[in-house]
C-alpha cells in the first residue's frame, strides 16, 4: 500500500533536517503515527500537524534529536501543502454517514 503525500513529506523533512537515515526517519514517523492511532497511507495534513506537535517531539528526544531543530521546518512545510491531502474516504466518515450524522 502506498503512503500518503503527507507522510512522504514528513519523512523527507525529518531526514533532511536531522542526521537520521531515510529508513530511520520513516520508522520514527511511523512509530509516532502508530502511537496516535493513524496510518501512513491515510493521514492528512491536519492530522500530521497534530502528530508533529504532540507526539513527534518525544520520539525525537528519544533519538537524541533536538525537536526545535526539526519541527518548525516540518510544520511550515506541512502547512504549505494545499488541496485535499487525504487519499480516501475514511471508515469513520462512512460510519458517521451510516448513522445519519454526515
Amino acid at each position, binding site marked *: 500500500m502506498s503512503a500518503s503525500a503527507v507522510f512522504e513529506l514528513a519523512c523527507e523533512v525529518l531526514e533532511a533536517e536531522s542526521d537520521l537515515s531515510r529508513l530511520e526517519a520513516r520508522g520514527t514517523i511511523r512509530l509516532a503515527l502508530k502511537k*496516535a492511532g*493513524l496510518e501512513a497511507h491515510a493521514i492528512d495534513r491536519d492530522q500530521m500537524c*497534530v502528530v508533529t506537535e504532540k507526539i513527534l517531539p518525544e520520539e525525537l528526544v528519544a533519538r537524541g534529536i533536538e525537536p526545535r531543530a526539526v519541527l518548525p521546518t516540518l510544520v511550515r512545510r506541512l502547512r504549505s501543502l494545499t488541496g485535499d491531502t487525504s487519499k*480516501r474516504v475514511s*471508515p469513520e466518515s462512512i460510519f458517521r454517514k451510516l*448513522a*445519519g450524522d454526515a
Partner: protein
Amino acid sequence: MSFLALLGPGLFSLTSLVIGSRLVMRRGEDRLPALLIGVAFLGGGGFGQPLVVLGHALERQGSVLAVPVQAIALVSLDIGATALWAFTWQVFRPTLSWARTLVVLAVLGLTISLIGQFASTRLFSLLDGSNPWFWLGFGVRASSAGWAAFESLRYGDMMRRRLSLGLSDPLTTHRFLLWGMSASAIVLFYVIAAVSLAVGGPEIATSGPVVALGSFLGIEAAASMWLAFFPPGFYRARFEPARRAGGTEQEPR
C-alpha cells in the same frame, strides 16, 4: 425455555430486519456501504436465521416444505455473508489486493458449498455435521463476521488513541466498538453452534444452557447493532460533553 429460546434470536432478527431495511432504502451519495451492510443484515439475521429455524421446525414435522424453506435460508444467509465480506473490504481495506482476493475466495467458497449441499445425498441438511459442504459454508459465513469484528475493533482501538489528541469524535469512536461487539457476538454464536453440532448434534443445540447463551448473544448483537447504526437521542446525549470538549474526554462507560 421456549420463550428464552426465541427472545434473543427473535430480537436479533427483528433488529436486523428494521435496520437492514432502513439502510438499504437510504438515498444519497456514497450509498454502497449502506447498501452492503443493509443487505448483510437482511440476508443474515433478517431472513436467513428465521428461515433456518422455520426449516428445522418443518423438517421435524416431516413437511414437504422443509427442503425449499431451507434452500431459501441457505441462499439468504450466503447473500448476507457475501455482502458483509464486501462491506468490510470496502470500508476498512478498499485499496488492498489481498482483501479483494479474500472476498473473491469467500464468494467462491460459499458458491461451492451451496452447490455441494444441493448435490449431496442428504439435501439441505443445515445442521448435518457429517456433511463437509455444510461446514465449508458455515465456516465462510462465520468468518465474514469474524473479519468484520476484527477490523472494527482494530479501527476502534486506533480511534481511541486519536481521542486523546482531539483527532476523533467520541460517538463515532464508540460505534466501532459497538459494531465490533455485535459482530463478535455473531461469531460466538457460530462457535457455540459448531461445538454443539460437533459434540452432540441438534439435540445439544436445543439444550438449556446453549439456548440461554445463544439468546444472550442475540440480545447483545441486536442492542449493539441498534446503538451503532441508529443511536437514539439519549445515547447520543451521553457523548455530548466529550464532543463539546473536542473529543478529549474519556468515553462514558
